């Protein structure tokens, strides 16, 4: 291999086309073939916000980004080395991320004057200087597809639909991947539509042969298999992992699941997935609004089911009053918040970490609850299990934060053995002498979980302040003080189960990067890169945002500077300053896009450079 743009250790490819061009399917099949051949993978999808934006326009562009590598990777990559553009709009929307010297493969049949106009190109970019820095491969994909399937009884439009398979065939050849698994997928998928199966297979093979014999490409690339832990793997998006986590938690708790939700981007697909898992004793409830979904979750928890709901920022706002009821009645449930860019409607398909403080403090009264955040697509699965573990043990609602980046991003998941997963089975109180609903476990401070239907334990609960123990309505001043303290102490007590957050690198040095949520991959990659250069930098990623581990402040003392990168205006930064008087440097971005490794490395370098200068701990950097 001679060129510099393509690094055979690590390729980042992006498929872009009209939302009807089948880019997601093409990307997903290519991902499978890279994964099967042993690469580590990370992918991101980029759907249009509009349901049916006009074909050929920029708002109608659908993208699928895949990074595959011969080593473990944690991000979808900062920029693209290979762009497959099915039309001018797809080119225009994605070209800025293609590295200089990168490969641009485009459908030359779709660069007519009409296509260019729809993409608002004044001049044909293929005829201007703007694409000179790339290696261009124009392929008449539409024509080749029509030729490949010409002997089949297909309409023109049905025939054209196979051009994603033609493009896939080309890419499969270019990266020396096997065709067989894709042929098998087509056969399985179209088992009842033999004509479609044949057409897609022909297009796939035609693309492969074209790439092989046309001599358009002078070389093929091979990304060797990655040395990952032995075992079975699958690709999983964050939202898929959330749904699987809910099913797993119910099975591990030996309880039926009631999952309630109101459709909201980017959370809805979890409700879709779970509605297909009914044979796992899963019931799903699409409520009339966010409030109802939250209240139904409370009702189900009260009834003794494993109860969860899912939403995004706007829905969290609406759920907040009922969350207070869940806290007051001390019932176990999980509220998953897949964050998106806000405020108000904001940018529903774009990513932010801006609901942290809303999750912690967005309720009236003293209303603490545990808040944790998932950090990788596959980690969403384990985070759900952890959230339910805490919810059940401490009899409390738990908020689990995810975000749009994790929701649609996918990574390779080393599948667990069920026997290695935690036992979540709760203990229901069924008999008691002198039972009271707010008697407490002396260690966890949890009150008992009593299912209605239990003879002899009839009792009333509700949102009015309780008398400690009896649970009767109480307006007594000292009792309220005691109950507020008890509820807080109970949640703080969750810390007893939590290890000190792991440190990536040495436990002292120049810079400690503290992060949370979906930025883990980019932060860890950046820190590891600087560590290999010899920088005295370490990272600590927080799973729990509430309660916060006391150890954080002691670890922080062993570093000259603390850097807190977040996709908000400094919410964890404020929190750590408030809780621990931590004098940290915030690094923030709210563009709706995830951090790139490049920008994180630059921010870290800047702070490392400060350490080189005369260092005075008492002179804050900003």
């Amino acid at each position, binding site marked *: 291999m001679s060129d510099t743009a393509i690094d055979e250790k690590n390729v980042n490819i992006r498929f872009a086309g009209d939302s009807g061009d089948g880019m997601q399917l093409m990307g997903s099949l290519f991902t499978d073939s890279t994964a099967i051949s042993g690469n580590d993978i990370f992918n991101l999808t980029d759907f249009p916000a509009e349901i049916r934006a006009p074909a050929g326009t920029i708002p109608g562009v659908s993208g699928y980004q895949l990074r595959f590598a011969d080593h473990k990777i944690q991000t979808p990559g900062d920029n693209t080395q290979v762009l497959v553009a099915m039309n001018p709009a797809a080119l225009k929307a994605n070209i800025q991320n293609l590295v200089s010297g990168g490969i641009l493969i485009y459908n030359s049949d779709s660069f007519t004057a009409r296509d260019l106009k729809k993409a608002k190109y004044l001049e044909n970019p293929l005829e201007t200087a703007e694409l000179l820095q790339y290696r261009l491969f124009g392929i008449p994909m539409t024509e080749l597809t029509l030729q490949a399937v010409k002997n089949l009884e297909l309409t023109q439009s049905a025939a054209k639909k196979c051009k994603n398979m033609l493009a896939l065939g080309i890419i499969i050849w270019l990266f020396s991947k096997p065709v067989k698994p894709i042929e098998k997928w087509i056969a399985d998928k179209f088992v009842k539509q033999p004509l479609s199966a044949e057409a897609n297979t022909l297009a796939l093979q035609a693309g492969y042969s074209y790439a092989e014999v046309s001599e358009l490409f002078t070389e093929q690339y091979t990304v060797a298999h990655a040395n990952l832990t032995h075992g079975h793997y699958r690709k999983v998006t964050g939202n898929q992992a959330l749904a699987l986590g809910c099913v797993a938690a119910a099975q591990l708790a030996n309880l039926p699941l009631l999952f309630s939700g109101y459709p909201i981007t980017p959370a809805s697909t979890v409700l879709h997935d779970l509605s297909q898992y009914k044979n796992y004793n899963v019931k799903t*409830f699409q409520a009339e609004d966010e*409030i109802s979904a939250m209240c139904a979750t409370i009702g189900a928890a009260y009834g003794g089911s494993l109860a969860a709901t899912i939403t995004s920022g706007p829905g969290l706002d609406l759920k907040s009053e009922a969350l207070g009821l869940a806290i007051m009645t001390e019932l176990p449930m999980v509220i998953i918040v897949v964050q998106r860019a806000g405020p108000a409607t904001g940018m529903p398909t774009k990513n932010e970490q801006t609901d942290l403080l809303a999750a912690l403090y967005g309720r009236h009264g003293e209303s603490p609850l545990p808040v944790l955040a998932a950090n990788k697509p596959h980690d969403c699965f384990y985070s759900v299990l952890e959230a339910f573990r805490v919810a059940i043990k401490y009899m409390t609602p738990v908020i689990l934060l995810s975000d749009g980046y994790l929701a649609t991003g996918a990574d390779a998941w080393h599948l667990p053995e069920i026997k290695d997963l935690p036992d979540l089975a709760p203990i229901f109180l069924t008999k008691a002498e002198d039972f009271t609903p707010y008697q407490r476990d002396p260690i966890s401070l949890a009150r008992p979980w009593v299912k209605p*239907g239990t*003879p002899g334990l009839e009792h009333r*609960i509700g949102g009015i302040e309780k008398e400690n123990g009896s649970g009767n309505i109480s307006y007594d001043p000292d009792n309220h003080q005691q109950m507020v303290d008890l509820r807080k102490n109970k949640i703080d007590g969750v810390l007893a189960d939590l290890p000190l957050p792991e440190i990536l690198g040495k436990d002292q040095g120049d810079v400690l990067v503290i992060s949370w949520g979906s930025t883990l991959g980019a932060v860890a990659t950046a820190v590891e890169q600087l560590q290999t250069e010899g920088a005295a930098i370490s990272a600590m990623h927080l799973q729990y945002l509430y309660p916060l581990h006391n150890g954080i402040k002691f670890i922080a003392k062993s570093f000259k500077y603390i850097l807190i990168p977040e996709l908000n205006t400094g919410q964890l930064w404020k929190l750590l300053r408030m809780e621990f008087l931590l004098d940290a440097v915030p690094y923030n971005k709210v563009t709706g896009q995830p951090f790139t490794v490049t920008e994180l490395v630059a921010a870290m370098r800047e702070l490392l450079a400060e350490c080189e200068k005369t260092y005075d701990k008492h002179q804050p950097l900003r």
Partner: protein
Amino acid sequence: MTKTKLTRQDFTSDQEVRWCPGCGDYAILANMQRVMPELGIPKENIVFVSGIGCASRFPYYMDTYGFHTIHGRAPAVATGLKLSRPELSVWIVTGDGDGLSIGANHLIHLLRRNLDVNVLLFNNRIYGLTKGQYSPTSEVGKITKSTPNGSIDRPIDAVSLALASQATFVARCFDVDAAGLQSLIKAANQHNGTSFIEIYQNCNVFNDKAFAHISDRDVRADKTVWLEAGKPLLFGNNNDKGLVRDANGFSVIDVKSAADLQKVYVHEPRHGDSSYAFQLSQLSYPDFPVPMGILRQVEQPTYENCLQEQVDASIKKNGQGDLQTLLNSGTVWEM
């Protein structure tokens, strides 16, 4: 634990009842406690769920399971509970503010889904717990603390709303009508689906005698009509008046002969077409007697049964789900 024969005392909790002396809620509570033993349901299987307001204190006084939730949300909490535990007997207690204002949306959706739960809506046409503001059922021109110049919103009729929401059991009663209320509670319990009972309830502190013009003993027979399935719509002191129904709707006639009686419409709550019940619900004082009793009662599948059927069908088709198989579904590869 469950005694063979329960008594009213078994349903009385140890909590001191804290409604204002003279409140209509006392009568409703007493009737409920009196009827409950007759329903034959073990009391541990009964759950009262309420929202916020005077009426919503109800669960504290019943020695069953009880959940006093937040304003307007009792139907939503009850929905989650019923989906989780279809075998429980669930009773929602709400008021005109709780159920028709802040929580009206949940009420509509509960009714259209037809979960097998019972709703008791105490309508006193005023906000009592917040000390006397007009409610969504207050008459136009109501002078209250928040409407010193008279309220300008038109009131909503709870029964009409329930019918429009496709409720399968819709009834109305007075707090002071013990026999009527007890019969409706029993009928609601029997009904398989959401049973909605509006109870005209007197708030003697903030809206005293709101229903006296139709409920007082000396006018009740004349100003209301008690609906009984299969019986003609007769009212008046000696059943000497009747409701006739034609293409123009209802009209009142004097019933003096067998021929007159023939003309009187026979009540049929099981009418498949809800327009009859809706027409009934629109009859109002002073031109018409106010209908009391069961306006509509039809059988429809319940939501929780339909959902359970989907679960059962899925298990039948796919087998009881195996977690390892689920996790390993899709493209799985070995490293």
